[in-house]
């Protein structure tokens, strides 16, 4: 489905984010993501190279199994799409789900 129809003025925003915490998108970060996503009315989908899932479903988000360094495409459709994308990008890339990044020189 393309969004060629401008009469409804559908807002679509997309962003690519990178998982930066060492442990990746395990269950707790996935829950944080879903919690933030659910604060918005817009539809949110998240995809990696293989799957596209509902950003508001914990089971589907867990299925992405995004490891540290994985890039995810977030797409938001709806009136508050821009705010949603900003909040999710902040959670993933800046707050890093309140988790540490990988240790640089372990050995």
């Amino acid at each position, binding site marked *: 489905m393309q969004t060629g129809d401008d009469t409804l003025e559908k807002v679509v925003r997309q962003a690519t984010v990178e998982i930066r915490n*060492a*442990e*990746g*998108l*395990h*269950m*707790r970060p996935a*829950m944080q993501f879903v919690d933030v996503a659910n604060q918005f009315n817009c539809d949110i989908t998240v995809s990696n190279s293989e799957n596209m899932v509902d950003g508001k*479903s*914990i*089971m*589907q988000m*867990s*299925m*992405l*199994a*995004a*490891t*540290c360094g994985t890039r995810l495409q977030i797409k938001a459709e709806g009136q508050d799409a821009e705010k949603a994308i900003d909040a999710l990008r902040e959670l993933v890339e800046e707050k890093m789900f309140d988790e540490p990044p990988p240790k640089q020189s372990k050995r």
Partner: protein
Amino acid sequence: MKFADFFCFEAIIAELQATDRDGVIEELVTSLDKAKRLKRGRRDEIIKAVITRENEASTGMGKGIALPHVKHTGVKDVVATMGQSSIGIDFSALDKQPVFSVILLIAPADAPDKHLQAMETIFRYLQRERFRKFLRQAQTPEQIEDLLREADENPSLL
């Protein structure tokens, strides 16, 4: 990752005896211990760690499923098993409903990527209504094993 790569079929419990969350966790960890999938003498520590993790945030994700898990040095490799309860267990699930299928996952402390891959396999199927229905209908450990092996062989059928 396939179920056969990390799932301990031998430790599956078709009808859990325990009726509360912590009891179920203990029963499943013990079952993995009996199947020799934990390092010796680490059982109690692992039970405690899984319960501690569960207290931080429930892994009851709704639709009758819970996935208690922990990263722990008491295992050499990622290992999972599961148990089912026909009466339903209170896991303080997100949807506040009882849990009928409990999957326990234990991963080594230093392998976050493998942990994620095992999760991916588990959720790929658990989010399918058909799969959950088949799971609930399974009466024996063998039937559960067959279902998981079927998922490995013919993912599109489930």
